[in-house]
């Protein structure tokens, strides 16, 4: 599997940029639109992934492994975040029997 892409030509970086931006924006719109906490989480995951992809692309592009290392760490953080996020979701569900985000408005100015 080591050089399956032996002869492949790398796409110019601007493609990756636009693609990842689109993905990121879709994720963000998902967060803004959805009222269902679960889907919001998923959109956040999507946003994170688009960032990871772009990072990987830049890392390959600048021939510097740091990018990919960072992706790994982002994945770590994402995993931890999902774990805690879902448990919060479970608790809110238990409290007001729904995971509608609009109900969580007690912290008012």
């Amino acid at each position, binding site marked *: 599997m080591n050089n399956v892409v032996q002869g492949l030509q790398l796409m110019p970086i601007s493609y990756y940029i636009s693609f990842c*931006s689109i993905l990121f924006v879709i994720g963000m719109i998902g967060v803004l*639109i959805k009222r269902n906490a679960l*889907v919001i*989480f998923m959109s956040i995951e999507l946003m994170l992934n688009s960032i990871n992809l772009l990072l990987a692309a830049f890392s390959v592009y600048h021939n510097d492994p740091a990018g990919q290392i960072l992706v790994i760490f982002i994945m770590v953080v994402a995993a931890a975040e999902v774990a*805690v996020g879902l448990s919060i979701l479970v608790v809110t569900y238990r409290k007001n029997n729904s995971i509608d985000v609009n109900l969580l408005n007690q912290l008012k100015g």
Partner: protein
Amino acid sequence: MEKYIFFTLSGLAIFSAIMVLVSKRPVHSVLYLILCFFTIAGHYIMLNAQFLAVVHIIVYAGAIMVLFLFTLMLLNLNLANELRKSILARVTAVIAGGLLLVTLVAVLKGLDASGPIMANTQIGMTTNIGKVLFNEYMFPFEAASVLFLAAMVGAVMMVKKE
């Protein structure tokens, strides 16, 4: 030839991302998201970042999505009554998204997009990643493990019923 692969993968990813938002039932959106993750893994492979691709599939598609499904099924959230935000909220969200997209692209366009280099860069390979990970980034790696521990304890504590 690579162009076609890239575009199909991108198209598929965007389609599935949109479907995640549009789909009525949460289960569908989870499945579409998993599909999207696979396309992203494809991209990794294109970039010859093989270690990342594998880890990506295991961590995201495997672990996180399973967690989502698990929560979904456990709390029986798979109910159809789609909670709708007001039209105004959604329109502003889309406009905001669009604006952000435009600005992101405009900002990043300024980069010196030098020409493509040969695909077979080796940095993505597992051995290389491993070497770097355990040399310069030893401390963050250990910190990450502590982070995981904290997250696990947190998750358990939060959900435990007295």
